[in-house]
C-alpha cells in the first residue's frame, strides 16, 4: 500500500474542468500513491478573500481546515489555490493563535501538483507520451508566491514526443485575477490578448499551465480570436501515454 495522498481538486476543477482532477489522480496512482478525495471539500475561499470579504473567507478556510485535518499530503492542481492556503490562511487567522497553529501545520502538507511530483514523489519522468508542440504559461501565484518555475519544465522535458517552446515574454500575467476579470473586463481582456499573441508567436498547438483559472481565461480568448490552439493542465499532459 502506497502513501496516502488527498486530492483538493478546487471548486473550479470540480465544477468546470473535472478531467483535470481525474488526470491528476491517474498520475498519482500510477506512481503508487493511494489517492483519496475527501468529499466535504469545496473551495479555498480565495474569491472572497481577494474581494475584500475576510469574514466570509475565514468561514470557508475553517471548513477547509476541518476537511483536511487528517490528510498527510494534500495535492492541488492550482498554484493560486495552493498559495491561498499556504500563504494567506495565516493572514486570515493572525489574531487567532489556536487556528493559526492548525494553519501552520496545514501549510506543510499542501502541495501544488508539479511540486509534489518533483519534491515529494521525487520523479521527473512519469512515463507520459504527448506528441505535440506545447508552450507553458506560468501562473503568477505559482511563480511568484510559491516560486514554482523549474518543476513543471522538468516534468515536461521528460514527456516523450513533446516539444516545449517558451513564451516571450515569459512571466506576464494572463489577466485573469479572479473577480478582476469581470470587474475590469476590458483591461483583463487587453492583458489576455497580449498573452494570446505571445502564444501564437511560439507556433505551439497546446498551452499548458498549472492553473485551470488562467487556462479558462486563455482558452476563452484563444477561442474568441478564432484560434484552434488548445489549453491543457499539466496533469492532463502527464496522464497521456
Amino acid at each position, binding site marked *: 500500500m502506497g502513501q496516502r495522498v488527498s486530492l483538493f481538486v478546487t471548486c473550479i476543477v470540480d465544477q468546470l474542468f473535472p478531467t483535470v482532477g481525474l488526470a491528476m489522480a491517474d498520475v498519482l496512482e500510477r506512481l503508487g500513491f493511494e489517492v483519496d478525495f475527501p468529499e466535504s471539500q469545496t473551495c479555498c475561499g480565495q474569491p472572497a478573500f481577494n474581494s475584500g470579504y475576510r469574514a466570509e473567507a475565514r468561514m470557508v478556510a475553517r471548513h477547509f481546515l476541518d476537511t483536511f485535518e487528517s490528510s498527510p499530503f494534500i495535492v492541488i492542481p492550482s498554484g493560486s489555490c495552493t498559495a491561498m492556503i499556504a500563504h494567506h490562511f495565516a493572514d486570515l487567522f493572525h489574531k487567532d493563535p489556536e487556528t493559526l497553529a492548525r494553519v501552520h501545520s496545514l501549510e506543510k502538507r499542501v502541495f501544488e501538483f508539479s511540486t509534489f511530483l518533483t519534491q515529494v514523489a521525487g520523479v521527473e519522468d512519469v512515463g507520459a507520451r504527448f506528441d505535440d508542440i506545447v508552450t507553458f504559461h506560468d501562473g503568477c501565484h505559482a511563480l511568484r508566491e510559491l516560486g514554482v518555475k523549474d518543476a513543471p519544465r522538468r516534468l515536461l522535458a521528460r514527456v516523450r514526443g513533446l516539444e516545449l517552446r517558451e513564451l516571450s515574454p515569459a512571466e506576464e500575467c494572463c489577466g485573469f485575477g479572479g473577480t478582476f476579470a469581470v470587474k475590469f473586463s476590458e483591461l483583463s481582456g487587453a492583458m489576455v490578448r497580449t498573452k494570446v499573441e505571445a502564444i501564437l508567436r511560439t507556433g505551439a498547438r497546446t498551452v499548458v499551465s498549472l492553473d485551470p483559472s488562467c487556462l479558462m481565461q486563455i482558452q476563452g*480568448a484563444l477561442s474568441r480570436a478564432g484560434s484552434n490552439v488548445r489549453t491543457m493542465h499539466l496533469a492532463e499532459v502527464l496522464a497521456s501515454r
Partner: protein
Amino acid sequence: MPSEFHQKAHETLANANLQLAIFTATGRLKDKRVEAVGPGELPDYQELRTQANAIKQHAIDNLDHYLELFERNVAARGGHVVYCKDGTEVSDFILALARERGAHLIVKSKSMTTEEVDLNERLEHHGLESVETDLGEYILQLAHQRPYHIVAPALHMTRYDVAEVFTRRLNVPNEIVIEKQTALARSILRQKFLAAEIGISGANFLVADSGAVVIVENEGNARLTTSAPKIHITIAGIEKVIPRAQDLATFLKLLARSATGQLLSVYTSFLSGPRRPGEIDGPDEFYVLLLDNGRTRLLPDKNKRQSLFCIRCGACLNTCPVYRRIGGHTFPWVYSGPIGAILTPQFMGVQQEPDLPFASSLCGACGEVCPVKIDIPKILLELRSDVKKAETRDKQNRLEKLSFRVFAWLMTHPRLYEMAGKMLRSVGVPSIQAGPLRAWTSQRDLPPLPGRSFREMWRRR
C-alpha cells in the same frame, strides 16, 4: 454609471497611439532594469534589497529619533528645518519668505512631493513665477498636465506632442527634432536659473547622521536649482530620512538600476547647508521643509506602514501590466501604478476611489521588482478589505455583499454546494445574462460545461 477611474481606463485602452507610447516607454525601462539587476551586473541584488528593507524598517520605526537627529545636523551646518503639516503650511512658509526677501522667480527641480501639494499652482496663485526645470516636468507645466509617471513624467508624450505644446505655449516654430527641442528648453531655462532668487528641490534621501540632502538626477537641472539661486528650499516627505551616510551605499546601488537601469544616475548631489566662507557657489540661505501631509496617519498600522519605504524608483509602474495599459492619468492622484494604488487610499481615505485597490490582477510583479521589498500585493488585499468595511450600503454593494454571504454559506455546506453546481450545469450558464457573466463574455468565450462535476465522476470511477 462607470466611475471616473473606469472611464479614464477605458479611454486610455481605446487610444492606440497612447497604448503604444506607454507600452514602448515602460518596456524599455523594464528591460534595462532587468539587465542592470541581473546576476552578471549585480550579484548581491537580493541581499541589497533585504538590507534596504531592513534600513527603511528601522528608520520608519524610529522616525522621530532620526528626524530630530537630521534637524540638529542641518542646524549645525547653518540650515533650517521647518516641519509642515500640509501643503498650506508649505506654501505659507515660501510665500512669507519670498515676500520678505523680495523674490519673484523660483526655479524648481523635479519633486513628487511638491506635486502632492500642487505647489506651483499655490505659488502662482499668489503672483510668484515657479518654473519646472526638469525637461519632462517643464513640458508638462506648459501643457498644464500632471506627471504621467513617477520617474518619466512626460512618458506618454511623443516628440510631436512636445512640438505642439512648445509652439502653442512658447510661440516658436514647430520643431520635431528632439535635440532642437531640448536646446530650446535649455536656452529658456538657463535664463531662469540665472535670474531666480529661490531654488526649490525635492530630496531622494535625508541623511540623519550628517544632515545632508541627497538628490539623484540625470539632467543637471537639480544641481543648478540648488546652487545658483541665493535661497534654497528642499521639500521632502518625512519618510525620506535614513540613519547614516553609509546607508547610501545600499540605496544608491538600487535606485538608478531599478528606475532606469543606470548603474548610477548622472548626478548625485549632496547638499549640506548654505555656502560656507571660501566656497564659490551655493545658496546663502538653506531650508528643509519636512512634510507630513498624511504620512503619520500610516504609522499606526505595522504592516501598511511599509508603504512609506518607497524610494520612488517607478520600477513597479514599468513592470505592472495594469499601469502599462491604463497609464498614469487614470489614477486619481499624483502617484500612479501599484505604489499609487496603495498610497492614494491611505493618504486620501479608501472612499476617495474605492475601485483603486481592485484594479489589479494580483500578479505580484510589483512586489517582485520593488527594491525595498514593499509587499504591495499584500497591502492591496488589506485595502480591499478596508474598502469593504467602509463601503456605503447602496444597492450594488448590498448585492455583492449578499453574493459573498451566499458563497460562504454554500462553500461550508458541501451537499448544497453540489446541488447548486448541478443546477447551474442543467440550466446552462450561458442562459444567465447577469452582470459578471456579460462582463466575461464581452472579452472572451465561456468554457464548455462538463456534464458532471468531478465528485460525480469520482464516485462512478
